[in-house]
């Protein structure tokens, strides 16, 4: 028998399974207080998913406010935090919207579908803003590459992203791949999507206009993904994960492709008042958020929802996370035109209700009322200020500098430096990612100017004016474990630098904050420090955070991941024809190192790969230096002074030079200052290697001097080897074999 509002009043003390749905006793009591009675089964379902950590941000909101409070003043932001995705003005009437989101837990339980639907979800977020999705990226982290479980999870995740993204016709233009034992059992699958629209096309998810129709369009609703946001994404793993597989959704990219084209045609026809995507928490989320944002009410008849399983009741229909669905609001007069466009694209569309002025969400089921509640009470959720405490291990970790390891390297022979470099570029973290990226379509839509292995993905936005964008995502769990405040800023710095290395001007930031359980005070401290660091960093660099996502509970038992904020930076290129590739091209050009190098090895790739060491302090942050470097790179690119630029990060100058040589197979002869080991492997920030065009050397040198960017000549491009004078020579064939061989050897 279906539980109704009338029954809830008549049987007020009926026991309810709030704990199984992930609600605490206090939260359940609060719901009863809000409603003045016990919730119906349907209402309980709505609150359980909407008040989950994943949907409500109840533990993080108190910190995330800083992104708005510390936001630098900018005219570039058309829509900010709180929308499906932030929207940035890039000029010429174009607006770009981008966002990164996690699908970590589903991707561990069911790697292929978990990752595939992660792509699908973020693409719908972008579509819901009114934009055409134009590219995706993915930031992936797994346990050790050679661990048996990684061989289960990684190929599934990559296959899922490949399947879904390729089938949608969205180029995959970059991302990350990293390995660490801390991600065993808690892989991180963060998917980014970017979309483009004209300013006037911006859509907001706010249901307005009493009497307007509420339309559900896309796939039928099935029993997949029920409780995905609550029981899966908002709890730690503690064994028995295979039992959670029904909480993972199953994707149909073909329907999503039709949904994209259909929605874009609906927008162009002017028949959409508001639209929201159905992701986590499905219809429960779309109805409460649309009504709450509009300050209106809504009536919905769940018996009108097209089902894939006729056995579903109202609570399951509300919670289902079936993919490829959107909810649109349209005026009654526009309804025929709306439905005609949906029919053209073979997208099922059903009117399931209407906007009201009551301020209540009223949900019906075959004539009975199964929910009547204020939508904002679900959409806003509770707010927690959880205990945070600096972990007991932090001091010891920071004091464990790798000096005993780096000391003897001061006198290292050329042979030792050579073998260390080969070890780094052959390590899973340093190796070429071709095995992964070759499974992604990078070319579709015909606007991909740069993709992997370049520093950032670059897209042409306009074929006439050549305006374009650059995007990079970066994160470094090792740095963040050592110092979460600095680590978050280092992730920001690296993404900012990567975008700048293409010649683009960084404009805005998105982030995906991956952490352990917020119920652990040590994790909460890591989170608080990371958010503070990122907000301060964005303020200093003048790039606002436009939105993002928090993923807590990335831990199994008491084993949590390193704090891993992943930062995406978006930049604009006035003319993508001036973009800088990351590899050397022509021979005979001058190679220069920009930036200053100190001996900084805490959290470095060298210490990790060569000694399995993680301790000390990460490299010192210098945001002002990053800004100066970015300015020099942008000017150097725009004025045609440079032919290549590559940022220095993991593995320092040595790894950067090797990568510069391998992109196009052009070698180099360089000389590095003493101490060679420090010059080659330190990870000091705000540095880049550039190739300066033959006649531009003086002009570029003057530019660096004027901007206050240290610049030193390292050598020249050319030849078929990486030749470090007086130290070592590595033929490019050998370099390429080591760099390319690692992942295929492990994954087949």
């Amino acid at each position, binding site marked *: 028998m279906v539980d109704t509002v009338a029954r809830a009043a008549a049987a007020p003390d009926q026991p309810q399974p709030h704990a199984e749905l992930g609600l605490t006793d206090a939260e359940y009591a609060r719901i009863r207080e809000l409603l003045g009675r016990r919730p119906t089964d349907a209402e309980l379902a709505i609150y359980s998913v909407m008040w989950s950590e994943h949907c409500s941000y109840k533990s993080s909101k108190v910190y995330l406010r800083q992104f708005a409070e510390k936001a630098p003043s900018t005219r570039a932001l058309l829509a900010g935090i709180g929308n499906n995705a932030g929207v940035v003005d890039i000029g010429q009437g174009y607006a770009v919207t981008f966002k990164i989101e996690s699908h970590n837990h589903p991707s561990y339980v069911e790697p292929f579908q978990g990752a595939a639907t992660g792509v699908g979800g973020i693409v719908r977020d972008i579509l819901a803003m009114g934009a055409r999705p134009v590219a995706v990226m993915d930031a992936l982290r797994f346990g050790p590459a050679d661990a048996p479980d990684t061989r289960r999870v990684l190929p599934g995740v990559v296959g899922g992203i490949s*399947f879904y993204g390729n089938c949608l016709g969205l180029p995959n233009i970059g991302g990350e791949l990293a390995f660490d034992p801390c991600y065993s059992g808690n892989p991180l699958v963060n998917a980014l999507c970017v979309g483009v629209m004209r300013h006037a096309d911006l859509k907001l998810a706010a249901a307005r206009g009493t009497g307007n129709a509420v339309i559900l369009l896309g796939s039928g609703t099935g029993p997949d993904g029920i409780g995905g946001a609550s029981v899966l994404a908002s709890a730690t793993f503690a064994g028995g994960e295979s039992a959670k597989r029904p909480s993972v959704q199953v994707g149909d*990219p073909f329907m999503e492709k039709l949904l994209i084209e259909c929605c874009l045609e609906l927008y162009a026809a002017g028949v959409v008042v508001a639209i929201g995507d159905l992701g986590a928490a499905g219809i429960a989320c779309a109805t409460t958020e649309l009504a709450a944002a509009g300050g209106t009410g809504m009536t919905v008849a769940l018996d009108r929802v097209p089902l894939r399983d006729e056995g579903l009741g109202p609570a399951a229909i509300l919670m289902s996370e079936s993919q490829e669905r959107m909810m649109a609001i349209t005026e009654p007069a526009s309804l025929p035109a709306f439905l005609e466009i949906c029919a053209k694209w073979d997208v099922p569309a059903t009117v399931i209700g209407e906007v009201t002025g009551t301020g209540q969400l009223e949900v019906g089921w075959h004539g009975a009322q199964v929910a009547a509640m204020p939508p904002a009470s679900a959409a806003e959720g509770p707010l927690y200020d959880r205990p945070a405490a600096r972990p007991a291990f932090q001091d010891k970790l920071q004091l464990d500098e790798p000096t005993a390891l780096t000391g003897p390297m001061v006198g290292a022979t050329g042979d030792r430096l050579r073998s260390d470099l080969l070890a780094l570029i052959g390590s899973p973290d340093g190796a070429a990612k071709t095995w992964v990226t070759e499974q992604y379509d990078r*070319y579709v839509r*015909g606007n991909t100017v740069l993709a992997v292995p370049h520093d950032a993905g670059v897209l042409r936005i306009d074929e006439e004016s050549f305006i374009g964008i650059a995007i990079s995502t970066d994160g470094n769990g090792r740095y963040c474990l050592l110092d979460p405040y600095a680590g978050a800023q280092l992730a920001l710095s690296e993404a900012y630098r990567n975008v700048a290395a293409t010649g683009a001007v960084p404009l805005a930031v998105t982030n995906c904050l991956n952490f352990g359980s917020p119920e652990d005070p040590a994790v909460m401290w890591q989170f608080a420090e990371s958010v503070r660091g990122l907000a301060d960093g964005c303020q200093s660099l003048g790039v606002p955070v436009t939105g993002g996502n928090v993923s807590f509970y990335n831990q199994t038992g008491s084993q949590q991941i390193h704090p891993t904020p992943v930062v995406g930076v978006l930049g604009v290129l006035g003319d993508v024809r001036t973009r800088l590739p990351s590899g050397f091209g022509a021979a005979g050009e001058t190679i220069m190192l920009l930036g200053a190098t100190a001996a900084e090895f805490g959290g470095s790739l060298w210490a990790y790969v060569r000694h399995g060491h993680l301790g000390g302090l990460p490299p010192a942050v210098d945001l002002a230096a990053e800004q100066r470097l970015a300015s020099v790179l942008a000017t150097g690119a725009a004025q045609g002074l440079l032919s290549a630029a590559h940022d220095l990060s993991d593995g320092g100058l040595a790894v950067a030079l090797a990568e510069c040589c391998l992109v196009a197979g052009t070698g180099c002869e360089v000389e590095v200052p003493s101490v060679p080991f420090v010059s080659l492997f330190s990870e000091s920030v705000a540095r880049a290697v550039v190739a300066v065009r033959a006649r531009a050397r003086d002009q570029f040198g003057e530019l660096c001097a004027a901007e206050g960017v240290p610049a030193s000549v390292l050598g020249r491009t050319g030849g078929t080897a990486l030749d470090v004078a007086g130290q070592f020579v590595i033929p490019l064939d050998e370099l390429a074999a080591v760099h390319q061989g690692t992942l295929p050897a492990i994954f087949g």
Partner: protein
Amino acid sequence: MTARVGVITFPGSLDDSDAARAVARAGGEPVPLWHGDNDLRGVDAVILPGGFSYGDYLRCGAIARFAPVMRELVPAARAGLPVLGICNGFQILCEAHLLPGALTRNAGLRFIDRDVRLRIETTATPWTRGFAPGQEITVVLKSGEGAYVADAGTLAALAAGGQVVARYSGGNPNGSAGDIAGVCNEAGNVVGLMPHPEHAIDPLTGPGRDGLGFFTSVGSAMAGR
């Protein structure tokens, strides 16, 4: 006169706008064609673009072959209309029996996105007449089911009849029989190509401009009628 080249959009077509761009870049006039229309709009040639028509459900190209527009295309192709199927378009042409053989899962069972070298084996088609015989070009391969298969008799007949349009050069990426990257029908007017020439028309957004030759070829073929 400017060649009017139709580009069919099926549900799930992805590289349709890219094919249209390539036609325009080659000096032709791209004409959008819709899968649901029984109408070729009087075009001089037709491209079936890449993508995942109907989500590749059942089998790649198996459903698209029954689209209303195909009822017009098949007789027109048999009557000599120049037709180019790229990737999924090639799969559709095989399913529609306009081309022999079939495309199956890549040898490695994974999707491959890679710049590949091709050797043009015949210039006796409206899509390759602008190339030199034996010319090597670089284009983009991006497919999961790109391994060309046919029985031994068919393969021998294709080779003997000059129906192999292009072969992979310098390594077979996907296990295609005889390194075959593209074939044509006996008349030569219907060509199927697994790699994507439309993604190699501009060094800014692809590996070069070698692919443009397919689109300029059909333009000059029309001009020379």
